[in-house]
């Protein structure tokens, strides 16, 4: 079965979505990722969606769900590389992904994860409160 690979980088997990997501693929990813976070005890998840060209409301909700699930499992999630068209679509669909952290590219996302990991919770909340 088709799967999205989950790569382990130190204490972070890297998920790169290189194909167009369909519903089953998203559900599989949700299972795999939550399992992987528990198995490796990961503290951060980076989801790169720069190759994702199309989203619908289901995929949008899945991204939001996956991010929230990871947070419950004590792993901060950063979604990086969203295309302008995808961002506009999500906003028009009314999915503003509250609580999901975003960054422009993988590099920035890794830096943000590092900052989140090493900053105190209060400082982090203050830093991102405007987002």
């Amino acid at each position, binding site marked *: 079965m088709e799967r999205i690979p989950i790569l382990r980088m130190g204490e972070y997990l890297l998920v790169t979505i290189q194909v167009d997501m369909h519903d089953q693929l998203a559900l599989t990813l949700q299972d795999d990722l939550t399992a992987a976070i528990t198995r490796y005890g990961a503290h951060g998840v980076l989801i790169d969606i720069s190759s994702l060209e199309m989203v619908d409301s289901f995929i949008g909700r899945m991204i939001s769900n996956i991010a929230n699930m990871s947070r419950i499992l004590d792993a901060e999630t950063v*979604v*990086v*590389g*969203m*295309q*302008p068209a*995808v*961002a*506009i679509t*999500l*906003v*028009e669909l009314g999915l*503003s*992904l509250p609580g999901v952290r*975003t*960054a*422009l*590219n993988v590099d*920035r*996302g890794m830096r943000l994860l590092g900052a989140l990991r090493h900053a105190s919770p209060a400082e982090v909340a203050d830093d991102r*409160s*405007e*987002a």
Partner: protein
Amino acid sequence: MAQQTESKISRIIDQQESDILADWTRQLAGGRARSSGSIPEAQLRSEAGEFLNLLRRAVRKSVDDVNGADWQPVREVLGSISRSRGTQGFTPSETAMFVFSLKKPLMARIAAEHGKDAEGLAADTERLTTILDQLGLYTTEIFQLGREDVIRRQQQDMLELSTPVVKLWDGVLALPMIGTLDSSRTQIVMESLLQRIVETGAQLAIIDITGVPTVDTLTAQHLLKTVTAARLMGAECIISGIRPQIAQTIVHLGVELNGVTTKATLADAFAVALQRLGLVISRANHKS
């Protein structure tokens, strides 16, 4: 009978073309003195001559059907004349007068030609009136279309002019918005901003609404959409240039701007942006 009278209009123009033309140009020149526009007399004469020549040929082929293929050249010439009048700022009636002032010279000659034949005179008069009225209406229509073209082009220009995305600093973009924000404009603004964020890798975008005259719920919603879309891409937005009245309106409308940094002036927003990037502005330490 009908055939006979038809050939008369055509014959009149055939035989007395230069006379009619002279009369007509005199009329046009007379009208011109009163009107605001200024078309050189030579140009007026050449336009009139061309039109009369084409009219003569068209009348010879068919008298009734102004919208038919036989009248195509006449309509084309008339169209280009009205368009040029339109762009030069003439009024529609001044443009239509070009055709209507031909009525008098032609009518006089038709009357002279028919003499005592009242029936023929009536039939020809009616035909001529119908033709010229339709052509006059046609000029107005083309004139209107020309004006609409101008308006459309200006709208397009305004759209392009009023949505620039400028780079203030490495990683800081500014979007000075000018004019009313409607859905189509916001769409363009949002797209160009997001595109520039991708291109420049900017982390902060300042949306300055100093030039936006009024903010209603729809405008606020559009703004929030833009802010959210930018956030989804990993860039933060600051809204600046909020005037006192607009701040009042926003609160009275109950618009939630929670989670969006707002500043009164672009300078304040820029200061915040620099602070976020960990940059400091300091006075140059020059010795004088």
